[in-house]
């Protein structure tokens, strides 16, 4: 971190939050709000004279509340920049100056009570999102007595407790009587792998190894202290981790398969009593420990939502940011020019965070070094004469690549560097002002016409997205899975491109059934464009029903590229529906659509 601070080409903006971002890859403009530090960073020598005279004591968050700090403090000993900061919410006051002792004590006169919040804009080519994570709160797990018993700590508190720079200078003590505990018990998966709503359903990745490391440390430094670890299963899957697990067991740490149902305290001795069903023996056991460490997991910070909106990012159901592709683009966001590092993308340890950060830096450098961006050929273009400034395209674009100004009647503009080519805007545009290069309305309609030119009543028109459903069909093919030969596939880059006029055109040409198919919700390759697909299909179902056309004839399916078997099953089911569609029904549909009773323009 010190190297970062000294680097001539790295600008650090500490105490800062991103307020807004505009532009696209290579030309982002980021608005930053920086809180005042009230200390001149360049002049401060971090001597600490100011903190010695500050009369305000506060809990020290870095030390997990086990130590105090002053209102003027350094966040932690290695903080960059090496300068103090005033917590103005707790400072005795500067207007009028009620205390001022820090300013008097400062030998280099670096304290400035009049420092102001700054809002400024920076221009950047790429953005790396490294928002970190929060530690799960164990208080909902009342059975472990975290809020009742002094000697029940979280793994983070324990980490600070045994740190050489921590509150006890590395001495292991019980908080109740400041003596060395005879037995330390660790309870794993507190808050992780929890489906009852009190925690998170995912594995937090680091807790097992953190406990194993702590157990080795305890057995090495304090050989008389007994270590008991209560676990569901130990996940030691990294390089050298299994060896470390074995060393921990060899060092004497006892591993008990089972999570205690309850932790109680003996009020006289303050000893903690744990009741557990041992999964190996099948017996109910009682264990005693003088200190219990709750191995708490990681969770996404609460304020990730704001940055998600600002940068058009995608989140997983777990709350972490979703990468553009789990295997091929693991550090890229779906928004071009944005990359992820560390736990912003999911729980991970230091090594994985550093690996991912290096990869993100390399990905960003690759773009920056070249100085230009290769734009895919498949992007949207706007016919300004047809644009009615309705802003629907701008709302539909998952990448925020379209800008329209309704007030000044400025037609839509597509930032081609930001456009990913899903075509959702083109499908939503009611006036036909948007053309999707290589997937134009005319091209798709021509494909439908060709498919239905001969015996249309025997054909099923399938609109399949390039990345998942079409690939799922491919997979079914290479897997030699047989499906009805009545299918006719129209490939679009995204199911969001499937305009309702394509569906109605297929019906008007005599198609008995139409299937719209795309990626599963979280898998959409265009952030969330398939939500627009679903909205559109739902609207179409209503319209079809109003006009006496069975909505069942329009089907919607989410099929991934790995679901060849599902593709086969779906096609067989839809073939059964096709056989229920009578020639009279098809003729009626044609008549309805010829009369243009549906409020949709149809290309013929």
């Amino acid at each position: 971190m010190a190297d970062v601070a000294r680097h001539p080409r790295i600008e650090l903006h500490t105490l800062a939050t991103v307020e807004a971002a505009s532009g696209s890859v290579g030309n982002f403009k980021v608005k930053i709000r920086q809180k005042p530090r009230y200390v001149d960073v360049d002049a401060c020598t971090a001597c600490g004279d100011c903190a010695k005279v500050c009369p305000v004591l506060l809990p020290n968050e870095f030390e997990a509340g086990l130590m105090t700090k002053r209102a003027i403090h350094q966040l932690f000993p290695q903080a960059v920049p090496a300068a103090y900061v005033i917590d103005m919410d707790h400072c005795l006051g500067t207007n009028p100056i009620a205390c001022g002792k820090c300013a008097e004590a400062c030998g280099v006169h670096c304290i400035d009570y009049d420092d102001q919040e700054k809002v400024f804009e920076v221009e950047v080519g790429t953005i790396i999102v490294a928002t970190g994570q929060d530690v799960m709160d164990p208080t909902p797990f009342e059975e472990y007595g975290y809020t009742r018993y002094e000697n029940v700590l979280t793994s983070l508190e324990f980490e600070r407790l045994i740190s050489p720079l921590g509150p006890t200078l590395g001495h292991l003590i019980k908080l109740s009587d400041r003596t060395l505990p005879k037995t330390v018990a660790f309870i794993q998966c507190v808050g992780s792998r929890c489906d009852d709503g009190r925690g998170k359903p995912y594995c937090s990745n680091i807790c097992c190894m953190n406990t194993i490391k702590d157990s080795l440390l305890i057995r090495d430094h304090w050989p008389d202290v007994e270590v008991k670890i209560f676990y569901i299963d130990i996940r030691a899957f990294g390089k050298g981790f299994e060896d470390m697990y074995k060393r921990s067991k060899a060092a004497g740490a006892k591993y008990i398969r089972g999570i205690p149902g309850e932790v109680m305290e003996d009020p006289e001795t303050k000893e903690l009593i744990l009741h557990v069903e041992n999964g190996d023996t099948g017996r109910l056991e009682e264990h005693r420990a003088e200190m219990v460490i709750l191995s708490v997991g990681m969770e996404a910070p609460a304020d990730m939502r704001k940055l998600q909106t600002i940068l058009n990012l995608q989140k997983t159901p777990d709350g972490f940011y979703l990468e553009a592709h789990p295997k091929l683009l693991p550090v890229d966001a779906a928004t071009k020019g944005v990359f992820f590092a560390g736990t912003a993308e999911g729980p991970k340890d230091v090594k994985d965070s550093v690996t991912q950060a290096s990869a993100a830096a390399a990905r960003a450098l690759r773009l920056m070094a070249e100085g230009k961006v290769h734009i895919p050929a498949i992007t949207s273009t706007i016919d300004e004469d047809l644009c009615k400034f309705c802003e629907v395209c701008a709302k539909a674009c998952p990448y925020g690549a379209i800008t329209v100004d309704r007030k000044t009647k400025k037609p839509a503009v597509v930032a081609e560097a930001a456009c990913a080519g899903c075509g959702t805007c083109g499908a939503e545009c009611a006036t036909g002002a948007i053309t999707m290069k290589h997937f134009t309305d005319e091209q798709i309609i021509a494909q439908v016409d060709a498919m239905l030119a001969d015996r249309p009543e025997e054909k099923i028109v399938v609109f399949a997205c390039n990345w998942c459903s079409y690939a799922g069909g491919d997979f079914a093919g290479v897997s030699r899975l047989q499906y009805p030969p009545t299918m006719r596939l129209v490939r679009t880059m995204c199911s969001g491109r499937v305009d309702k006029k394509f569906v109605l055109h297929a019906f008007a040409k005599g198609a008995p059934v139409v299937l719209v198919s795309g990626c599963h919700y979280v898998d959409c390759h265009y952030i969330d464009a398939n939500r627009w697909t679903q909205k559109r299909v739902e609207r179409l179902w209503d319209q079809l029903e109003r006009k006496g056309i069975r909505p069942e004839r329009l089907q919607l399916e989410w099929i991934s590229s790995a679901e060849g078997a599902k593709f086969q099953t779906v096609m067989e089911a839809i073939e059964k529906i096709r056989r229920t569609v009578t020639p009279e029904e098809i003729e009626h549909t044609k008549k309805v659509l010829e009369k243009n009773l549906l409020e949709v323009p149809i290309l013929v």
Partner: protein
Amino acid sequence: MSDAKTKGPRIPCRYKCLRCGLVWEGSYVKGVMEELSCPSCASNSQRRLKEKKPPAEKE
């Protein structure tokens, strides 16, 4: 989706599968799109049934 918990309460509703015709009780969160599968045939083609209000009585 992750938004579902933050956007409001789940509203009970009925869904109809457009493939097998099964009608079942479910719920949704206003303004949140969710991927649904029919409990019988696993199809993704579901319509949320709009409950018709009874006609107002004439005095």
